[in-house]
């Protein structure tokens, strides 16, 4: 499994690992809003990265957990998954 990570999957992970509820629709509209503003700090993002790595069986680049916004995060992890496919 190494298809693209969607806004839907990110939204679900934000809820499951960080306890932050943002609907996929809202997240799609606010991809340039900082994770911090959604209430996700560095440990929260680290948990999301870990879960993604386990699901996709691929290691994410170290920068993934430092991405400031959902857009930067999705761009980075998806380019990683694309390169690995």
């Amino acid at each position, binding site marked *: 499994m190494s298809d693209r990570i969607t806004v839907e999957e990110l939204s679900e992970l934000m809820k499951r*690992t*960080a*306890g*932050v509820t943002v609907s996929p629709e809202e997240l799609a509209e606010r991809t340039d809003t900082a994770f911090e503003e959604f209430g996700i700090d560095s*440990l929260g993002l680290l*948990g999301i990265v*870990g879960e993604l790595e*386990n699901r996709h069986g691929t290691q994410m680049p170290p920068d993934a957990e430092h991405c400031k916004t959902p857009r930067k995060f999705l761009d980075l992890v998806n380019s990683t998954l694309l390169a690995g496919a």
Partner: protein
Amino acid sequence: MSAPGTRRAVVTGIGVVAPNGTTAETFWKATQEGVTVLDRITREGCGQLPLKVAGQVPSFDASAVIEERILVQTDRFTHFALAAADEALQDARLGRADTEGAPFSAGVVTAAGSGGGEFGQRELQKLWGKGSRYVGPWQSIAWFYAASTGQISIRRGFKGPCSVVAADEAGGLDALAHAARAVARGTDVLVAGSTEAPLAPYSMVCQLGYGELSPVTDPQRAYRPFTGDASGFVPAEGGAMLVVEDERAARARGVPVRAVIAGHAATFTGAGRWELSRQGLAEAIRGALAQAGCAPEEVDVVFADALGTPQADRAEALAIADALGAHGRQVPVTAPKTGIGRAYCAAPVLDAAAAVLALEHGLIPPTPNVADICHDLDLVTGRARPAPVRTALVLSRGLMGSNSALVLRHGV
């Protein structure tokens, strides 16, 4: 800011999550009625363990009082702490807006003995069951003793002195004293206390080696300190948080001063050396009374540690006699924890909360399940005893050898 030494620390708020009540009000009602809630342990995964009886907090819905974002990163002991802190702050009429303008004037101090065992066990099971990549990042903070202090301060935006007292069960009293010292040094308000959640399989296994645990499986007979049937103690979960505040700040805000934290002292006499705790506890009592400027005869009620083994009970009864002299045989002594169990570091904080409420209501709560005292003590049993209580002495000892005494005086 006043000069050090001129600031008095007072209690302005109480929050409780206890086996017999999940608010200060319900806790006090059950405590003064002498209700006993000790029962067979029903928490998941604990059925096969030889420890059978405890004081469990029933029907506590953490998701009703704590945001999901915080829930996923915290253990049950921190859920209790956050809920109790909320209640205490509300009781003290301290809203977010009251501390926002001066975040460095507010701090937190807690004590913890068990930490976040349930959360930790879940993550360790992932570690050994699936591998290190499946351990979530929150493990790094959730099972740590300091988790509750950290989460309360972050959630409330408190940037004043924040600390954790690791000093055995008696650390619960030491945390209140630590808060009083922080007030004396210039901090206006602290949330101080302890909560524990040691009733999960891993945490319970950690306790099985304690020789002082009661092996009795009948909940009504398992924890009967100061009697010929004393066979050890029963553990409990839950705890209490107090708002400890500079008296002048409290009066300026126009909130009632519930009690004054007047004196405290602590000693150490070694793990399980209960005979020596006689001397250690007596010395702590003397130190606390000296700091409070309080004569032994002024003590109106003693909240006993009441460990529940013959040796420890005898040491405590003698310590009270040693430190209070003839008054030690006349002063009412109570141990309401026999109705709810002994919540480790949180046990003496629950006693301190009950002591403040006893001062306010002029009512000494009884010692449930206990009758036929075999020590020279006036233990309050059966029903609550009305009495003009102005000064309360709260005692605590830890299984690892700490002894602590706290003097609380009426607020008005």
